[in-house]
């Protein structure tokens, strides 16, 4: 995957965001069968997976520079999107260490980390950063360590502290959230944050997920996918900004649904942090328009069937009610009824030609 190509994307205003063919075929499509229901769909985050988006600790793609710029814009308007409680300083350094080491290992052409004892030199070529600092000494960085490094990565992050057999969200960098009160589920301090999620409570999903996370081990990260839909390729669909993005939902018509409506997938990863014994929760957001999905026959058939048969409570909870019939009708016209193979991979090497 190259990161060239998407640097001019914007996620607001005129929305110039689009996916290249390479980005489409590596998309982390979230449905492994023609229907969808909540499950504890956690699995080891190994260096393998059904598409290229899964195979590195932290995925960097063609939207990298644009997403870092979008994050900076959001923070400029609302610095409170990055907050970490004081007792999480070890977890901040843990995060910086994990991200820098992973990026430098997985993308040697883009990032480099050189250490001389506690003196670290960090180079981020796409963003033009060359910094030397002292690991463990926050005064040697322009921002606190967690903010400093998460400004240089795609996706949101939260920091969890583990104590008294529970997990508490005690920090985060959150600028690209799907309306949180909806979808921000695993890894959070548990039952309170998950209060609004229907159906899943009855299934005991959160009790089991909490137990699993309490046992999460250093060096054995796990991942899961979550999904919703977003009108326009807007990353920042935060509750605070509802007046800005909420009205978008009424703008979807049969004529523009293919272009406007996006499947929004979160590749969520959970890493145990060593010094702090905290947990880093990564929420990496991917957007793909229905028109782009049409170019992968397996995915367009499956998305049609999943949306058509979606549990009514989930439709409401995910906020899809207004435009779902339009989307289903649009996709139905492109579903020939053929069987779809198992798994989420696209089953072809490149998208169908336009």
């Amino acid at each position, binding site marked *: 995957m190259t990161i060239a190509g998407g640097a001019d994307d914007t996620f607001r205003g005129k929305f110039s965001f689009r996916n290249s063919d390479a980005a489409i075929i590596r998309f982390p499509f979230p449905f492994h069968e023609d229907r969808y229901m909540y*499950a*504890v*769909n*956690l*699995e*080891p985050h*190994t*260096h393998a997976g059904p598409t290229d988006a899964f195979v590195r*600790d932290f995925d960097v793609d063609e939207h990298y520079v644009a997403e870092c710029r979008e994050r900076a814009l959001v923070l400029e308007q609302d610095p409170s999107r990055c907050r970490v409680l004081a*007792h*999480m300083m*070890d*977890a901040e350094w*843990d995060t910086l*260490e*994990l991200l820098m*080491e*992973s990026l430098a*290992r997985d993308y040697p052409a883009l990032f480099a980390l050189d250490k001389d004892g*506690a003196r670290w030199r960090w180079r981020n070529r796409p963003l033009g950063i060359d910094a030397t600092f002292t*690991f*463990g000494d926050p005064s040697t960085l322009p921002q606190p360590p967690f903010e400093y490094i998460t400004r240089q990565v795609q996706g949101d992050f939260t920091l969890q*502290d*583990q*104590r*008294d*057999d529970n997990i508490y969200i005690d920090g985060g960098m959150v600028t690209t959230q799907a309306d949180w009160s909806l979808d921000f589920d695993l890894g959070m301090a548990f039952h309170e944050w998950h209060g609004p999620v229907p159906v899943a409570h009855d299934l005991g999903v959160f*009790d*089991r*997920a909490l*137990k*699993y996370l309490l*046992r999460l*081990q*250093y*060096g*054995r*990260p*796990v991942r899961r996918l979550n999904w919703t839909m977003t009108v326009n390729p807007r990353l920042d669909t935060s509750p605070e900004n509802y007046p800005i993005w909420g009205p978008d939902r009424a703008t979807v018509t049969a004529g523009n649904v293919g272009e406007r409506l996006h499947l929004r997938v979160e590749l969520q990863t959970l*890493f145990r942090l*060593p*010094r*702090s*014994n*905290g947990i880093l929760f990564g929420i990496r957001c991917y957007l793909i328009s229905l028109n782009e999905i049409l170019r992968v026959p397996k995915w367009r058939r499956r998305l049609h069937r999943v949306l058509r048969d979606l549990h009514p409570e989930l439709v409401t909870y995910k906020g899809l009610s207004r435009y779902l019939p339009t989307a289903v009708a649009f996709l139905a016209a492109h579903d020939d009824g053929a069987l779809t193979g198992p798994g989420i991979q696209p089953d072809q090497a490149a998208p169908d030609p336009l």
Partner: protein
Amino acid sequence: MTRAEDIPLRVVAVETLNDTLLRFTLARADGGELPTGAAGAHIMLAVQDGHRTHRNAYSLTGHPDDRRCYRIIVRRVAESRGGSAYLHAHVRVGDVLHAGWPVNLFPLASLARRHLLVARGIGLTPMLSFAAVLSARGAPFELHQMCRAADEAAFHALLAPYVDAGIAQVHVDPAPAFDLPALLARQPLGTHLYMCGPRRMMDDVTACARALGWPRHSPHQESFGDHSGGAPFVVRTARTGLTLPVAADQTILEALEDAGLSPACLCRGGVCGECRTTVLEGVPDHRDDVLDASERIGNRDMMICVSRARTPELLIDL
């Protein structure tokens, strides 16, 4: 470096601390940095003794920011024939051992305003990493080490900087001057208590803390978790006709995978239910979080990624 492969570790130094205590310094045999070994973390060291593999947990005693080596202290116990005895008798500088990534079940409490460390005997080892981190941080702490006379000199040497600074004390048996209730009673609010040592000593400290009204989650105590697996047993598969030994440190799922099967699984941790398998004969030892009490008693299904056997053999529907 975020994968859980076993790490090859070369012994770069062996120091004799006294008759029964050796300190091993281990570095990555393939060069490079080790995973960060937190205060309170341990490694499971695999020692190959002929055909047998011993796996023992050893606390890391250094500072987590030192990623060049791990330091562990190993006690030889007269009657033992396990990994520690083997390390004492046979392992020399230059030898290569293997260990998994550090696991931390004894972490420092993030909200503590002050830390009180109480240990007996070899229970000192995790306290050494706590002391290294807390003193580097400038966090207030106090360490009390109980021991027999034979260990006094060695422990004094290990704790010398803290003893000199008045932060640590070594109490040699019998130590009438060491008044645990008084020590606990004078701790300010916000102090967390950590303890490590023989069962009996930890029970005593816990009882004392309870009597003084310390909160439920303090004292913290060292735990090596339930890595041990359990007794080995045999699993037979009804449909594929295999008979496979499941070793003490292996799961049924791993044994099946080693034999070339790929049973359904996802979390590999007993929560998702994906590996649910019907039991045809034998009694499982349920260790998952999927089945409820009645399902467990019903004995029909099991999660093969974590659960084991109460009977020498299990016949499963695979």
